[in-house]
């Protein structure tokens, strides 16, 4: 059986970024852990389809809605793939 393992070069990049963020926060005198005095914000996103995706048509509909929304907000579209 195949075993999935993350790409090592990408892991190094992620690790380096994590360490950089941590160092920057330390230099700024900020903690790495969440502030216990602040109210945590719960997940407030609403799914495109409340019942989830059940077909290719559902998935395409979500993609099309995102494209319409991006156009509506006049945001640059990602490069075509």
């Amino acid at each position, binding site marked *: 059986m195949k075993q999935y393992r993350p790409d090592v070069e990408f892991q190094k990049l992620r690790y380096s970024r994590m360490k950089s963020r941590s160092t920057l926060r330390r230099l700024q005198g900020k903690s790495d852990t969440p502030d216990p005095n602040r109210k945590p914000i719960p997940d407030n996103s609403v799914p495109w389809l409340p019942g989830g995706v059940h077909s290719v048509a559902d998935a*395409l509909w979500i993609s099309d809605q995102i494209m319409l929304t991006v156009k509506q907000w006049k945001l640059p579209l990602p490069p075509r*793939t």
Partner: protein
Amino acid sequence: MEAALTTANLTQELAATHRVLLIGGLAVISHGLDRLTYDTDIWLDPLMDSYHWSEAVAQLLANHPCLKMLNIGTWEPILLHQLPDIIERDGVIRLMGANHPLDIFRRPNEFEIDEFDEVWNRGKTQEDGTRLPDLIDLLVTKQRTGREKDIMDIMFLESKIESAYFEDLPGASEARAAEMLGRFLTPEVARAALAHPSFEIRKLGYRYLQELAAEGDPYAAEYLREEPAPYGIMPGVGVG
């Protein structure tokens, strides 16, 4: 004149007569990531050989004469008699003529043709007759593509699988835990295995951490510095 042809309808038509797995961006959306995509990617049952596979595609083309086949990359048209050789060489073709491009794979990235059955069996049937590959199989198709856009998909899928593993691994039987680790391994998952009730799984988790660290994974190397080695294993980097 044919009514507006959609890739959703084309896919459903193929799925009525053949096994069809949804892969690519739409499969990632189906697993919960909100992102857009321009094309539909499917893995059509590879069948006995590229000739039988080509016949299945030819039937679709016969039903919808507006469809055109293109070479992926060069975007040159493909004639029907060229299809078996091209699919043997490229593993994928593009169909144009519906509302979105439809990429039909016979051999998707990181999978061999003979692995179709196991991916199909692990998949989930959808209402339109297609199947959605499980998270790990989908993640495998995203490996080593060298495409920036796949990084977001990889991070989403890895994170979702890890969450499921953190929930299931502690209570999994020894056999099931070994099977899980044999299929998906990140430093965080290997570290989670160190808390498993079975000593064998703790040893396996530690050995995997050593392997990952030896391969150059910095997270695994850091966890090894923090975690005590289970009894009977030499601590530190290096395969025990």
